[in-house]
Every structure is written in structure tokens, then in C-alpha cells.
């Protein structure tokens, strides 16, 4: 028997069911990583057949453009797609047939009145009604096991709960315990664990049968060297073992959620507590605990008493998520590059497509994890959760997971960092330069990733802080965080994609003199220094990228939109959905004091700034008769935004940087329209066709809107925090001085 210390000063338990559990996203992550690995393995399997390899080599040599290469490799993509279709079909079949097989294998019998104690069916019906499951499951008896336990399983449309033989005796000897165990199994149905669990099991089995097995067979067909087998093999082994361990970790967490759900029905006088206290700890060696699908009984009891631990994010959770996500990214980009060509105007389209696929996992696991952490802290009035540990875990996972991916092996390059040489036979200076450039870029990429992910999590926490207080008066916070999830997926996808694209391009540029010369000529860079040329290229690319404009809009729009519902804000602890156990004390509805939004100020300053810009341009052209080029106009617009944003950032006490970004955006829009109008009015004839031509040239070819908006946003992001920090420091100084000089009452 476990002796427990006194836990929980009887604070009400936080409700873990208002947010999707991070295990839901981890199930999806396992699903996606299995598909991503399948795409890669089948791509490799295609080349195992000598005729296929020869055809591809010939096509690659004879092709003179990218479209031709893509066309040749189309068949590889189709082959890989077929592999995925086979994986999913087999998984679907396993999932569908699994319950039948389990019933046959286990020798389970349907429960009926002749083979069970009296009143049992009635109790089971009552418990099904209490649990609120839409359709009662079929109860089965396992005559082979004397354990006092049960198991839930099934498929879509068919749910089963097996009660072991020992449960029949428990029903007669300890009915509250029987009730608690059945409620636990019903909780798995209510938590929708069955489909997620058994589809995950099915897809893992399908992966073994339809991917691993063919790959092992292919090793004997020739064409694989020992080096190649080892290089690919250890990655496959690590991936398979990781998937298995992650699956078990997810299942352990699902047990805890089922316990909490069951405790809501079982009530404070129920037997669940007593059962965990009397359960012996499993007698297994420490490393075998990783293989178990059930947590330690003591941990289960602790969580029942206080659910706070379900809201914490750990370094290791984020680290594992980072590793798996980067494996997905590296594998998917390999496949995407087979089917999406590089377009002249959107060279980063592949990375964007890949980033958008993986981004919901990052947003769902660590982003929503931040929401849960903020909620838990706010509900207990304990301030804000820490971000640094989770950021470090995530970034280390993203970086260290790259060599593990099959895609990295295929391309000699991870999603963020590459390590390939540029020539087949490099000279010593080239090799040294390559090594130094790569080491520098690894460091730089790591630092950038750290900053970006820290800022992303900080932004997630900000959004959660604002919208949870608004959701306090709503029946549920669901629509608020689902909307955030959509926006955050876009934000993270673009961030990861841009970092990947520009780190790869920068690496290429730094070590390829021909590329440097071309960029210098195209962009008119005044120097041939490789670092400065690369920087010019990166800044130019980011400024012209429409996805960057979307990214910035997403950053300020979601938090600042809270201004429209500012009067509804209340403390999270007063929300009806915040706690599991209804409090006997009446809801207090204490209005929340926070520093006000300054959205009107930002709008007015932005409008004024935009109009001032138009006036300045007109003064230069018609007043001073100075000819300004479009490039001069864009530069002036960006610089002015760099002045507008700090004005607002210095004035706003709440979300100052985001207010500054918003003001810069408003000003940038006015400036773009103004500049377009001025150019248009300087045409000889103004017709619809001429107007369309001017707009297409300015905003299509020259990228005026993108440059003004993005350039202004970057400058605002650079200057805004500095000014806001200074303003905050001055306010604190003034506040202290006022306290010093205030006469004593």
C-alpha cells in the first residue's frame, strides 16, 4: 500500500478538458511521421530496381531545365504516393478487423443475465447513462483472466468494454470499486481514446508490414552497400523505436485523463482514490517503465487530487516534439521537391508548403501547451508561466532531429541546415571555406531559431492571456483557441519555412563566388564582401516576400482584436469552465484591471503618418521640383514607419510593440495607396488599362506594397522594443520619484 503525503490544500481542480490534450496532437504527429517516412522509403525502393535507376540517371543528365527534371521524377512521386496509399489501406483494414480478431483471440463472451450476477446489467446501464456516452458499448466477459480490471477497444460504430472474470467477483464483494473501474473504461469512450489509440496501433503495424518489410527484402535484391544499409538502417531503427516509446507515453497520459474524467462521475465519495492508494507499484526495472502503457499508481492518485501537473510543459516534451517535427519537415520537403518546381517569383514555395504541413503540430503541441500553462497560472492567480525551458527543448529537438531524418540522408541536408559539399572534388581552401561557412551558419541558424521560437511562445502566451480573460464570460474558450491555432499554424509555418529557405540559400551564396557575383550585379550591391552580399540578398528577399506581410498581420491582428471585447474581460478563475468541481461559493464576477489598449491612438498615428508621407512626396515633386524614383519613395515610406511605430510603442503600456506594428501597417497601407496614386496621376493619359498597368508594375514587378509593408514592419520591430523598453523605464523612474516626494499621509 502506498502512503501518501498530504497533497492539495483542497483547492478546486483545474479542468483539463476545456483544451485539446497535447496527446491528440501527438497522435497526429505519429501518424504524419509514419506517412513521411513511408514517402521516403518508397522513393528509395523505386531506385532499387536497376532499370528504374538508369532511367532516372539518363533523364537527369539529359534534362536542361527544372521542369524536365520534375517530369522525370514524377514517377518516383507517384510510386511514393502508392506506398502511402498501401500503408493507409493496410492500416484501415487492420483497424477495422482488429476488434473481431481481439474477440476471437481473447475468447471473449458477451455478458448476459445467465452468466453474470443479478443486478449487474442494471448497474452497467446506469453507468452508461451517467457517463453520457452517445451509444452504450457492448460488454464482454474475459473468462481467462482473474484480474479485477477491464479493457476498452473497438472501431468506429462498435465499442466494446471487456470485463475480466475477477470483476464479477468484485461486483459482489466491492461494488464501489467495480463501479469506479467501469467508469474509467467508459471515460476512455467519452474521451474518444479508442479510435486514436487503435488507429495509431494499426498504422504502426501497417508501417512494419508495408514499409519496413519490403525495405528489408530489398536489401537482399542487391544495389545496397553495407555503408548505405547502415546509414539508412540506424535511422529507421531509431525512428521505429521512438514511435513505439512515444506511443506508450501518449497512452500513459490518456490513462490519467480517463481517471480524471471518471472521478467527475464517481464523485468525492467514490472508490477511485482508494483503488490507487491500495494498488501495488509495478515490480519492473526502471527501463521497462518506458514500455508500460499505464503510469505509476501513485502518479495517478496525485493527478486525481490536483490536476495542475497536466497543464505543465516540460523540456523533454518539447524536445521530443522538436525531433519528430524536424524529421517530418526534412522528409516532406524531399518529397515536395519532387512535385513542386521552383518558381522564379516564389523560390521558397516548397519550404512554405512543407512548413504549413508541419506547423499545426508545433502550434498544437507547444503553442496550445502555452495556452494550458497560462490558463493554469491565471486560474490560480500565479502570474505567467516560464517559456525558456520549453523553447530550449523545442529548438534543440528541431536541430538535433535533422540528422535522424531519412530525408536528410537523401538530400545530405536537413530542413534548417545542410552539410553537403558544393563540388565533387573540392580543393583544400574550398573545403575549409565550406566547413567554416557551415559551422557559422549552424550557430547562426541555431540562434535565430531560438529567438524566433522564444518570440513565438511569448506571442502565444500574450494571446492566451488576453483571450482567456475574454472567454471567461463565454461558455467555453474553444472557438478562441481554435482560431488562434489556425493563425499560429500560419505564423509558425512561415517562420520555419523562411528560416529553412534563407539558411540554405545563405550557405550556398557564402561558398559560391559565381552566385555572389550574380547577386551583386542584380541587386546593385556596392561591395563584393560575401557576407554583405548574402545579407543584401536575404533582406531583399524577405522584403519582397508576401508571406512575410501575412506573418506580421497575423502577429498583431489576433492579440489586438481583443480590444473589441475589452469590456467582457474577467478573471479566468471566475469562468464557469475553469474548474472540474463546482464550488459552493457563488461566482464573484470581479472586473479585471489591466493597462488599456491604445488601438485608437495607433490608428490615428498611422493614418496621420501615412497622410504626412503623401504630403512630403507631393512637396518634393511639386514644391521643390525634385524628381523622386519609386525606390526613393519606398525608402522614405519605410523610414517614416520606423518613426511612427516608436511613437505608438512608447505611448502604449500594453502590447506596445504590437501596437507599433499595427500603426506601421496602417501608415504603410496609406503610403502605398498614396504613392500609387501619385505615379498614376503623373501618367499622360489615365484610363483603366493604364491604371491597371501602373498597379501591375508597381505592386507586381517592383513590389511596392510588399516592400513598404514588410520593410516598415521590420524597422518597427527593430526600433519599437527599444523605445518601449526606454519608455517603460522612464515611467518606472517617475513612479518611484513620485513615491519619494509624496508627503506622508
Amino acid at each position: 500500500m502506498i502512503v501518501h503525503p498530504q497533497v492539495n490544500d483542497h483547492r478546486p481542480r483545474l479542468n483539463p478538458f476545456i483544451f485539446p490534450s497535447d496527446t491528440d496532437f501527438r497522435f497526429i504527429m505519429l501518424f504524419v511521421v509514419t506517412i513521411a517516412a513511408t514517402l521516403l522509403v518508397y522513393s528509395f525502393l523505386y531506385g532499387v530496381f536497376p532499370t528504374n535507376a538508369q532511367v532516372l540517371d539518363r533523364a537527369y543528365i539529359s534534362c536542361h531545365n527544372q521542369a524536365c527534371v520534375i517530369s522525370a521524377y514524377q514517377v518516383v512521386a507517384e510510386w511514393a504516393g502508392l506506398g502511402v496509399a498501401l500503408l493507409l489501406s493496410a492500416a484501415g483494414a487492420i483497424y477495422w478487423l482488429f476488434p473481431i480478431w481481439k474477440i476471437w483471440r481473447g475468447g471473449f463472451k458477451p455478458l448476459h443475465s445467465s452468466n453474470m450476477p443479478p443486478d449487474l446489467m442494471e448497474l452497467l446501464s446506469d453507468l452508461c447513462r451517467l457517463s453520457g456516452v452517445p451509444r452504450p458499448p457492448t460488454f464482454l466477459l474475459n473468462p481467462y483472466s482473474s484480474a479485477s480490471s477491464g479493457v476498452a477497444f473497438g472501431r468506429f460504430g462498435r465499442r466494446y468494454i471487456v470485463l475480466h472474470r475477477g470483476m464479477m467477483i468484485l461486483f459482489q464483494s466491492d461494488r464501489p470499486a467495480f463501479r469506479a473501474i467501469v467508469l474509467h473504461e467508459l471515460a476512455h469512450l467519452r474521451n474518444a481514446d479508442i479510435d486514436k489509440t487503435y488507429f495509431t496501433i494499426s498504422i504502426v503495424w501497417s508501417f512494419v508490414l508495408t514499409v519496413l518489410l519490403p525495405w528489408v527484402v530489398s536489401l537482399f535484391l542487391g544495389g545496397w552497400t553495407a555503408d548505405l544499409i547502415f546509414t539508412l538502417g540506424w535511422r529507421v531503427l531509431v525512428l521505429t523505436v521512438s514511435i513505439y516509446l512515444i506511443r506508450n507515453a501518449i497512452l500513459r497520459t490518456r490513462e490519467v485523463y480517463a481517471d480524471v474524467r471518471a472521478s467527475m462521475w464517481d464523485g468525492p465519495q467514490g472508490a477511485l482514490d482508494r483503488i490507487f492508494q491500495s494498488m501495488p507499484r509495478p515490480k519492473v526495472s526502471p527501463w521497462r517503465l518506458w514500455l508500460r502503457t499505464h503510469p505509476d499508481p501513485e502518479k495517478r492518485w496525485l493527478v486525481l487530487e490536483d490536476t495542475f501537473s497536466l497543464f505543465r510543459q516540460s523540456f523533454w516534451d518539447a524536445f521530443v516534439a522538436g525531433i519528430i517535427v524536424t524529421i517530418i519537415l526534412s522528409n516532406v520537403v524531399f518529397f515536395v521537391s519532387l512535385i513542386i518546381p521552383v518558381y522564379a517569383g516564389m523560390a521558397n514555395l516548397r519550404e512554405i508548403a512543407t512548413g504549413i504541413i508541419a506547423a499545426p503540430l508545433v502550434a498544437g503541441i507547444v503553442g496550445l501547451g502555452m495556452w494550458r500553462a497560462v490558463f493554469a497560472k491565471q486560474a490560480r492567480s500565479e502570474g505567467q508561466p516560464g517559456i525558456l525551458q520549453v523553447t530550449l527543448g523545442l529548438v534543440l529537438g528541431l536541430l538535433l532531429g535533422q540528422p535522424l531524418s531519412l530525408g536528410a540522408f537523401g538530400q545530405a541536408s536537413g530542413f534548417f541546415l545542410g552539410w553537403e559539399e558544393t563540388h565533387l572534388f573540392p580543393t583544400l581552401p574550398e573545403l575549409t571555406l565550406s566547413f567554416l561557412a557551415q559551422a557559422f551558419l549552424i550557430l547562426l541558424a541555431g540562434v535565430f531559431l531560438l529567438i524566433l521560437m522564444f518570440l513565438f511562445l511569448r506571442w502565444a502566451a500574450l494571446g492566451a492571456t488576453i483571450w482567456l480573460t475574454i472567454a471567461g464570460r463565454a461558455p467555453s474558450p474553444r472557438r478562441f483557441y481554435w482560431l488562434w491555432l489556425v493563425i499560429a499554424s500560419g505564423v509558425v509555418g512561415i517562420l520555419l519555412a523562411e528560416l529553412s529557405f534563407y539558411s540554405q540559400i545563405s550557405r550556398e551564396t557564402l561558398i559560391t563566388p559565381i552566385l555572389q557575383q550574380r547577386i551583386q550585379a542584380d541587386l546593385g550591391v556596392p561591395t563584393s564582401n560575401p557576407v554583405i552580399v548574402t545579407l543584401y540578398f536575404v533582406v531583399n528577399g524577405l522584403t519582397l516576400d508576401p508571406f512575410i506581410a501575412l506573418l506580421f498581420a497575423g502577429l498583431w491582428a489576433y492579440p489586438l482584436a481583443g480590444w473589441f471585447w475589452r469590456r467582457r474581460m474577467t478573471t479566468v478563475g471566475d469562468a464557469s469552465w475553469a474548474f472540474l468541481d463546482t464550488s459552493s461559493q457563488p461566482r464573484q464576477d470581479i472586473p479585471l484591471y489591466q493597462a488599456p489598449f491604445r488601438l485608437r491612438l495607433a490608428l490615428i498615428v498611422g493614418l496621420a503618418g501615412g497622410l504626412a508621407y503623401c504630403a512630403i512626396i507631393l512637396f518634393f515633386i511639386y514644391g521643390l521640383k525634385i524628381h523622386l524614383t519609386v525606390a526613393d519613395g519606398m525608402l522614405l515610406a519605410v523610414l517614416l514607419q520606423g518613426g511612427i511605430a516608436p511613437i505608438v510603442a512608447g505611448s502604449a503600456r500594453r502590447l506596445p510593440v504590437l501596437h507599433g506594428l499595427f500603426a506601421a501597417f496602417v501608415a504603410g497601407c496609406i503610403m502605398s495607396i498614396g504613392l500609387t496614386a501619385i505615379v498614376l496621376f503623373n501618367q499622360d493619359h489615365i484610363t483603366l488599362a493604364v491604371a491597371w498597368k501602373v498597379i501591375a508594375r508597381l505592386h507586381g514587378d517592383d513590389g511596392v506594397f510588399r516592400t513598404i509593408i514588410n520593410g516598415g514592419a521590420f524597422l518597427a520591430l527593430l526600433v519599437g522594443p527599444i523605445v518601449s523598453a526606454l519608455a517603460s523605464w522612464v515611467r518606472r523612474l517617475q513612479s518611484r520619484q513620485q513615491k519619494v516626494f509624496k508627503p506622508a499621509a
Partner: protein
Amino acid sequence: MRDMDADQFVVEIVRDLLAQAAPQELSLFEDTCDAYFANPGKMLKGQEGQEEPLGFDIVSSTSALLITPAVLAIVDQITRMIVDRVAESGTASKLLQKLHLTRRAPEKVTLPLNLTPEQMKQVHQAALEKARQCNLPKAQAELLADSLVGKLAMMNV
């Protein structure tokens, strides 16, 4: 004299024994018997169970002290001894039995049993040994063995 199906013989004896030793297990008796005859090895091995996803944690759960499988195994073994099971099955049918695709060919017990006192002693000893293998407590094993011998003695005439 009359012949009785051996499995039916086992069921009747075990039912009588359980009625005295563990009446609370009678509600599950029929299903347990069916399961035992379908797969005796699994029935006896399955006392501890295996951890399964979405279960309650079978490894840490308490197991009820159910004696039906053990009693079935004891009486089954004794019955085979009595009937002197030396029917030589072919390799194919043994394989099918191993795969639980067929059951053993039904055998018959001839009543009255006509067991000698020496044979009764052997029965008692075999019952005790089997009970020990099934991990029954010593006192319970002796009680069962005595009850079984007493029951067989009643069938001896």
C-alpha cells in the same frame, strides 16, 4: 453400468465442489468451463494477464482469488487418469488440437468407477500435486482433494 461424456463428468464434479468451496463463482461457471475446454493452457496461464492499452492496468490490479480454473484442471487431470487416456491421435489431429481448431475426441467415463483404495490414494495424491502446480493454498488444496475423493467414492458404487 452407464457411460458418461468425460467433459460432462468433469463439469458435474467441479460444480458440486464449487457449490461447497466457492459458491460465488457459480454465476460464471458455464462460461469458465467452455473457455477451459477450448483452451486449458490459456485458462491456467491467464491468471495474471497482460498489460493492454486502454485497460485499467492489469499488472497492478488485484486479481481475485478464483479457484474454478484450478479445480477444473485438477478434476480434468484426475478424470484423464481414470479413463486412462492413451488414445493415440494422429499428428494432424494433434496439430489441429494444438491450434485450438478442434477439440479432443470426446471420451467416456464408465459408471460406477470401481476404483480400488490404492487408486483412490493415487487420485488424492495427484489432486494435491496438481493443486500445488496451480498455486492453490495448501489448506484449500487438501480440502479440495478430500472433497474430490469423497465425491468419487460416492460414484464408486
